[in-house]
């Protein structure tokens, strides 16, 4: 069969206060008041579904060897690229072996659970370990309910043919063209239907049928379910579904709406990752995704979960938090508000695809070089080594730097250079064990930046070419919180 070997998640640091969204829009949409509680995660300007996927995968994989991974699935409805494999970018950032199958799965809010099911089936087929990541940075119109309901984030699972920490019992899926909302190709925002119909006929009836079908198919009783992870964006729906199916109320996993928001197609997986943090051995988890039908996945935890070394996970990333009360900043980050950027923003960012391809390990993987004669580490690697005592030619080997801890050597907070989030913090960082580079800093808290401060590298958007919309990704340094 198949099972979950490891899990991880990512939640961006900024938490936009829903009260601030409401305050700004109250004049126009007073009806939003009921949703104006708690906070939602928002991606920084330099984060998207791909960068969050990378972070969730790094959380999941930890120091584990990645070379055996044979397939990579990424689910999202907010892929930055419509035609360029998004999981291919993730593959390069994670420095996975070239012999890996990659696939993007989208077009529905159940893309996350669907991708998880497919990845599990792939690992059952004996092709080797599979990585499945769901990530979402959904766009919502200002003053819409979705703007308040949504959250940004990602979850990742490493799957294998063994039982792991949670073995797959089985899956059950249904499909109905139930159009609660849609977004046509090329359109920016969703168009939705009346919420009472969506809730009654869709969330509750169609999902309920799938839950019942799954229990029946796999010979389980509703009371067997210890954790119910339902990523449906409506308050009380999960509890209502549990009640109707006979699943115990205490099995319903908290939806994280108050602290994070609903991360679209990733949310069921975010909840599964969160549930695994506290699951005990021999417990059954049910994961449900909804969108033009429903997917239900059933797992049973193994004894191994008790000994599992927990990643940051949802809780760890939720704890790495910065309260954001500036709604205008959020609008600007999303591109809903066109600010005067100044002429310095006119710098040409046109991609050079040939150069990107031949330097993909350097650029996307943050892989430097290590001299096999002297051990000198450098970034980027070069024909002739930087070592002053032994400038050897052609003897460097790949040396990944992305997961190395770093410290600040020099820094500034630059008010002149264009950045969507001024001032632009950057400086030189030196890696533990050797190697250094000039890096932009992001997710900065001013008091965390000083010479010697601990930093951690993260895969981020470097720039977006205005003419072609090409996204340049690279690595940046972020203050390393004690636990991250």
């Amino acid at each position, binding site marked *: 069969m198949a099972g979950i070997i490891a899990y991880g998640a990512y939640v961006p640091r900024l938490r936009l206060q829903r009260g601030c969204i409401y305050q700004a829009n109250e004049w126009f949409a007073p009806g939003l008041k009921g949703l104006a509680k708690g906070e939602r995660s928002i991606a920084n300007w330099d984060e998207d579904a791909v960068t969050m996927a990378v972070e969730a995968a790094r959380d999941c994989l930890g120091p584990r060897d990645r070379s055996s991974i044979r397939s990579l699935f990424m689910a999202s409805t907010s892929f930055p690229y419509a035609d360029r494999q998004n999981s291919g970018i993730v593959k390069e950032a994670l420095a996975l072996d070239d012999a890996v199958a990659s696939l993007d799965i989208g077009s529905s809010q159940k893309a996350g659970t669907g991708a998880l099911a497919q990845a599990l089936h792939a690992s059952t087929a004996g092709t080797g370990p599979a990585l499945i990541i769901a990530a979402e940075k959904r766009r919502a119109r200002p003053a819409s309910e979705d703007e308040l309901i949504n959250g940004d984030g990602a979850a990742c699972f490493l799957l294998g043919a063994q039982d792991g920490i949670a073995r797959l019992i089985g899956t059950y899926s249904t499909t109905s063209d139930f159009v609660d909302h849609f977004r046509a190709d090329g359109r920016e925002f969703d168009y939705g239907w009346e919420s009472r119909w969506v809730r009654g006929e869709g969330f509750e009836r169609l999902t309920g049928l799938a839950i019942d079908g799954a229990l029946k198919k796999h010979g389980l009783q509703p009371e067997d379910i210890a954790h119910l992870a339902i990523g449906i964006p409506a308050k009380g729906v999960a509890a209502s579904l549990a009640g109707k199916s006979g699943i115990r109320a205490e099995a319903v996993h908290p939806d994280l709406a108050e602290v994070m928001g609903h991360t679209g197609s990733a949310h069921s997986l975010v909840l599964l990752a969160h549930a695994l943090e506290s699951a005990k051995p021999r417990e059954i988890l049910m994961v449900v995704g909804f969108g033009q039908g429903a997917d239900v996945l059933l797992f049973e935890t193994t004894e191994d979960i008790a000994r599992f070394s927990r990643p940051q996970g949802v809780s760890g990333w939720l704890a790495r938090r910065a309260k954001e009360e500036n709604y205008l900043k959020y609008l600007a980050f999303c591109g809903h508000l066109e600010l005067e950027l100044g002429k310095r923003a006119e710098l040409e960012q046109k991609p050079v695809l040939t150069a990107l391809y031949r330097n993909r390990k350097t650029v996307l993987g943050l892989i430097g070089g290590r001299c096999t004669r002297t051990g000198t580490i450098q970034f*980027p690697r070069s024909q002739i080594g930087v070592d002053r005592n032994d400038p050897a030619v052609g003897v460097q080997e790949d040396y990944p730097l992305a997961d190395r801890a770093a410290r600040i050597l020099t*820094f*500034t907070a630059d008010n002149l250079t264009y950045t969507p989030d001024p001032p632009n913090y950057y400086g030189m960082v030196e890696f533990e064990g050797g190697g250094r580079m000039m890096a932009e800093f992001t997710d900065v808290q001013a008091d965390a930046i000083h010479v010697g401060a601990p930093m951690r590298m993260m895969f981020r958007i470097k720039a977006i070419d205005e003419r072609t919309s090409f996204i340049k990704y690279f690595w940046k340094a972020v203050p390393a919180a004690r636990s991250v």
Partner: protein
Amino acid sequence: MSDGIRDKVAILGMGCARFGERWNDDAEQLMVEAYLEAIADAGIETSQIDAAWLSVGFDATNIGPSGIPASMALRLPNIAVTKVENYCASGTEAFRGAVYAVAAGAADIALAVGVEKLKDTGYGGLPVRTRGTLFDMVGVVGSAPGNFAQLATAYQAKHGVARQDLKRAMAHVSVKSHTNGAKNPKAHLRRPVDMDTVINAPMIAEPIGLYDCCGVSDGAAVAIVTTPEIARSLGKADIVTVKALQLAVSNGWELQGAGWDGSYLHTTRIAAAKAYKEAGITQPAKQVSLMEVHDCFSITELVTMEDLFISDEGKGWRDVLDGRFDADGANPCQIDGGLKCFGHPIGASGIRMIYENYLQLLGRAGERQRKTPPIFALSHNLGGMPNQNVAAIAIVGMEGA
């Protein structure tokens, strides 16, 4: 083993355009203005020039490619004109080309012309630009102040200097240059400022404020060089010769290697040591009696005092505050206002520094003339950023000094 450039080449004439916001002039007018002064000073005809070097830093927003713009503007007699670019050290690089041509005997008389038309970008500060294909994917496109501000944060950390003490020393650097620039009719910025204004100015890149930054100017400067013998044959009595001319270029050690801490300019130290040796200077702090250094930012000037071995390491900020580099101090620095106030038209700056040193050596610097004429006058022209740069040093003095 080469015995260096010392006394092999003489400066025959120099010229410098008025620096500043020359809204109504193209690069052509600027070059011609500097050239007419230099050719008159040299006392020769255009037809006597054998070869020329043109320096410009930002050709894309300026004159465009090749040496042709200088050849056309000055109507040079179809001689070789080589355009050079070496970041902000381009001016000294052009001078070096001309001096080496004469020293090699390939040219009797050679010309160096540096020009920059920066005030056509539509915004203040230097133009932002690409730095090459790979760099644009992995590098940081910081501003010049942002790049140099890191010297200050690293210097503070290394030497345990409190931020407010360093800010005060940096402010003194700028106040001094404004005082000097006020006496220079060709300077871009001619208004004295006080310490409070400098310290409380808007922050550009922590800890560099507005007044820690040099002027971004239009301008041009010209040097005409020849052998001392030809200079004498052309009737020159007081002959200024080149004592040393050195360039040191980063090879990636600061940026990629291990050991550099970000608080100093590695290349400046290398170029300075070579230049002193070439000039026969053994005690720079005593013998270098005038300096024009690359004060693109106040902090750059401050650490350069240490990198030129004028101040002890970690003590430069105290020497600054003690007035050692003021116009009446032991080692006056930026007596013409420096990049800070004379201005910084990139391609011209290195030649402008030599122009000032030349005038001071000949006692022709007017109101700002150093009371005791200098023996050795040093110019330090730096291109790039602290972790990747080109350091150029030229030392000039009277023949035989």
